C-alpha cells in the first residue's frame, strides 16, 4: 500500500512541477518527488515480517531482516536531496533579489 502511495507521491511531485509557476513551490514539489522516491526505494527492500537491519542479541534467522541496501541508498539520497534543496533555495533567494518576486510569470522575459 505504501508502495502505491509512494508512486502517487512521485506523480504528485511531477504534477506540482507541471502546474506551479512559483520558485518556492517548485522546490516544494521537488521535495515531494524526493520523499515519494525515498519511500519507494525503501518499499522495494521491505520484507513482510522482516526485522530492522540491526543485529541485536536476540536476532537469529538471517533471512528475517529487511533488505538494508536500499536504506543505505536512501540515506545518500536524502542527503543529496538536502543539498539540492539548499542550493535551489539559494537560487530562489538570488532570483528574489533580482526580480523581487518568486512568481516566474511576473519576472518578464529574460
Amino acid at each position, binding site marked *: 500500500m505504501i508502495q502505491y502511495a509512494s508512486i502517487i507521491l512521485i506523480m504528485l511531485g511531477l504534477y506540482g512541477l507541471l502546474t506551479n509557476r512559483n520558485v518556492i513551490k517548485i522546490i516544494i514539489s521537488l521535495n515531494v518527488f524526493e520523499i515519494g522516491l525515498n519511500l519507494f526505494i525503501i518499499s522495494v527492500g521491505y*520484507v513482510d515480517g522482516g526485522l530492522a537491519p540491526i543485529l541485536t542479541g536476540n536476532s537469529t534467522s*538471517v533471512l528475517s531482516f529487511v533488505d538494508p541496501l536500499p536504506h543505505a541508498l536512501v540515506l545518500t539520497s536524502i542527503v543529496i536531496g538536502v543539498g539540492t534543496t*539548499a542550493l535551489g533555495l539559494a537560487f530562489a533567494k538570488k532570483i528574489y533579489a533580482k526580480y523581487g518576486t518568486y512568481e516566474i510569470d511576473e519576472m518578464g522575459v529574460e
Partner: protein
Amino acid sequence: MKKVLSLLVVLALGFGIINSLNQNSSFPKFGEADVSDRVSDRYINKNVTEENEEVIFGEDGYETGSSNFVTSIVANYRSFDTLGEVTVLFISAFGVALLFSKDSKRVSLNFKPNFMLRVGSRALFGLIIMTGIYISVHGHLTPGGGFPGGTMIASSILLLYLSNDSFRTKIKGFKLLEGFMGSLYVLIGVAGIYVTGYFLENFLDTGVVGDLFSAGIIPIVYVIIGLKVGSEIASIIDNFLTEEVS
C-alpha cells in the same frame, strides 16, 4: 483546466506505473522481496568473499564488526558512495556560500534574545550536541549515524545562533573543521591503498560485533562524517540567515 488536465495525465501515469509493476513478473510484490537473491545478503552476512555464514551477535572476526547493517553498508561496503554524498553536501554548502555575496549581513530577527532564551539555549546546546555526537559515535550499533548526528550538532549551533548575535564570526572557524574532516576522510581512504591495497579498505581490527570499539574504521568515519556534515549544515544555515545588503 490546465491543472485538472495535468493531474489526470499524471495520475494516469501513476496508475500506469503501478499497473505495469503489478504485471511485472520479475518485480517483487510489496513485502515479498527476496533478500537472499540480492547482493545485500552478502552484506547481512558480512561476507562477500567467502561462503555465506550466519553472523552471530557478540562474536568477532567478521569483515565489518558493525551490528547495524545499514551502517556497515554506508561506511564500509559502499563507503565510496558516502564520500560522494558528503562531497555533494560539501559542494552544496560551498555553493550556497558562493551564491550569497560577501557583503551580506545577518537577518535581523524580530525579537531580541532575552535572558531565558540565552540561558535555555545554552543548556539545550550542550544536550543537543551531546546527543548528536552520541548518535554519530554509535552509528554502527544503533540507528542514526553521522548524518543525523551531524545535523543535530548543526542545530545546536543554530540555537547559539538565535541566542547570540555576535556568534556569526565564530562560524567561519567551521570552514577549517569542514575542510579538515573532508581531507581526513579522503586520507583514510588513501591510507587504505597503502595498507591493504584498496581505497577505503577497513584496515583496522573489526572487533566484536556489538561493542562500541568495534567495526574498524566505521565509527571513525562516522564521526568524521558527523562533524563534517555538522559544519556544512551550520554554514548553510548561516548563509541562509544572511541577506544581501542592497
